[in-house]
């Protein structure tokens, strides 16, 4: 293994990725072996494996930390632009060093634990929050042959790890010994459990059509073009479009972002389960939320937007991981846009929307996907599945969103 061979195999440099299968982890192993031989040591196999695992872990954490830092400043600037003001522009060029200033501020703040708090659980809650969030990104395919951990049940892994977040929210809310915290945590858990159902169901739709639970297999199933230029992404089929929207809404709700930010609605609950957290622990919660958001957006890109596939045939010379991150940035931007534009839901609206609209719609999408598959995936199948998702949409929209249903029958579940 010489140096020019290694250079040739770096994903961004190869011209046509299809001809040479690039295996990211094998590449790292070879790089480490090459470095070892350059110094004059032959490294044993287990050292290579260990070092490559460490490199993958450090890379994922570093990339997501940088994305978190960039997102925190760009989100504020974008929202400011939408609301006709400047946003942060004091620290560094164009305010780009704002995250550094924020980080210093967070680290130097006093870490307060309330006297009545359950100290152990209060301490463990941020850890329980950030650990699953940092594990989530490992199953995403970032490019051809660039899957950190190739799991045959990757989608299931993602949702199983995501379930840990609810527990952390409960721990944070209950251990703070504050009624705002408990109420915020109860709201957050109710919201997460309710929206997890349509989220998982819409992922099941894709798993059904792709015939696999492995994220890489799902991206491979979306390769190719119809008519030579329309990509075979799942979002461009009727059932996939519906499932994609459901997944997007579920992702918004799971990451507690506006318009689903009721658990930490400042005007109602101070800051929900985060009320009694300060300093570095608060920053950890914040970070976990953003990393979780990136991970779930990455899953959205993987499931519906073709993952690392390029949108047009003549753009395939651009490395596949560029497409993944470009799509990820677009989805993240749309979430910021939504946050800047829409007001917050009321709690009964939120619950009704999840159980009476999104869940039946996800079942409809499941049936439509099965029909699409068995009708031959052609134009006729396209029309048929459009019909199967269209009719429930019209009927449910009529039933759920007529005025008197939402405005009059209000029940105050948690206020008694």
């Amino acid at each position: 293994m010489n140096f020019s061979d290694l250079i040739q195999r770096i994903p961004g440099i190869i011209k046509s990725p299809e001809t040479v299968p690039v295996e990211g982890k094998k590449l790292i192993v070879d790089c480490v072996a090459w470095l070892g031989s350059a110094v004059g040591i032959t490294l044993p196999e287990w050292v290579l494996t260990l070092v490559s695992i460490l490199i993958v872990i450090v890379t994922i954490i570093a990339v997501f930390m940088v994305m978190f830092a960039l997102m925190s400043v760009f989100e504020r600037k974008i929202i400011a632009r939408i609301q006709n003001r400047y946003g942060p522009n004091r620290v560094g060029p164009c305010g780009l060093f704002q995250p550094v200033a924020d980080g210093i501020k967070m680290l130097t703040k006093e870490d307060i634990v309330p006297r009545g708090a359950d100290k152990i659980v209060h301490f463990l809650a941020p850890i329980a929050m950030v650990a699953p969030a940092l594990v989530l990104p490992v199953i995403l395919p970032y490019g051809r042959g660039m899957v950190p951990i190739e799991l045959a049940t990757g989608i299931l892994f993602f949702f199983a790890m995501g379930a840990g977040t609810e527990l952390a929210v409960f721990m944070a809310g209950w251990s703070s010994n504050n009624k705002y915290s408990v109420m915020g945590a109860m709201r957050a858990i109710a919201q997460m459990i309710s929206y997890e159902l349509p989220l998982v169901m819409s992922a099941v739709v894709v798993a059904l059509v792709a015939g696999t639970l492995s994220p890489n297999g799902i991206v491979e199933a979306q390769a190719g073009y119809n008519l030579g230029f329309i990509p075979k992404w799942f979002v461009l089929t009727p059932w996939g479009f519906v499932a994609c929207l459901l997944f997007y809404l579920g992702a918004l709700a799971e990451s507690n972002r506006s318009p689903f930010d009721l658990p930490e609605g400042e005007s109602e609950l101070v800051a929900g389960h985060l009320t009694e957290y300060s300093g570095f622990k608060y920053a950890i919660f914040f970070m976990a939320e953003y990393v979780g958001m990136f991970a779930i957006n990455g899953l959205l890109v993987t499931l519906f937007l073709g993952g690392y596939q390029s949108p047009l045939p003549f753009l395939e010379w651009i490395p596949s991981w560029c497409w993944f991150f470009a799509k990820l940035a677009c989805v993240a931007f749309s979430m910021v846009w939504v946050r800047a534009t829409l007001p917050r839901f009321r709690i009964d609206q939120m619950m009704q929307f999840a159980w009476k609209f999104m869940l039946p719609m996800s079942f409809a999408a499941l049936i439509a996907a099965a029909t699409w598959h068995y009708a031959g995936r052609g134009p006729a199948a396209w029309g048929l599945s459009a019909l199967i998702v269209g009719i429930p949409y019209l009927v449910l929209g009529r039933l759920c969103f007529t005025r008197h249903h939402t405005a009059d029958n209000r029940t105050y579940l948690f206020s008694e």
Partner: protein
Amino acid sequence: MHDLLQRFLSLPWDQAPQWLFLIPALLMLLASAAAVMLRNLIHCALCLTLSFIALGVLFIALGAEFVGFVQLLVYVGAVTMLILFAILLTPASEVAASNNPFRSFNLSKAVNAVTGGAVALLVLCGLLAAIFFSPHARAAVNPAQAAVAPAKAIGENLLSHTLLPLQGTAILLTAALIGAALLAKEERPS
């Protein structure tokens, strides 16, 4: 000392990775012991969650990846959440004094604890005796190749050999959903 070190090094270390499952197993036992002994109900439920997480990891370590993830998804995501909600829906006074026989001394409670402990210990002795002295369990050998349960095979199995149990489970879960909703629904005075 040197002799001990020599014997330690000559143990079959190449078989060590297949005993790694002992780490989650011990964590699981510790967490479940804490879940039984602790005074505060919320702490009990949180320890139970830790025990379930370790059990899921143990399943994954034994090669049943799919079952391990389902265990994490169902138990951590749903069952413990139900338990925690139920604990919060019972009044705070009872959460504080959850009459744990191991902490507060009281004759009837002590008798209760001793009897329960004796029964559990008896069952444990019986089980362990059966496990370590039964000829069937001793006849089992380590498998030649690692047993794996691929998700595709599980799916095919669910829809062929175990189709009837699957349908039965679906009906049962629907019945449980409706039943739980009906039971927990508050009866409002008309």
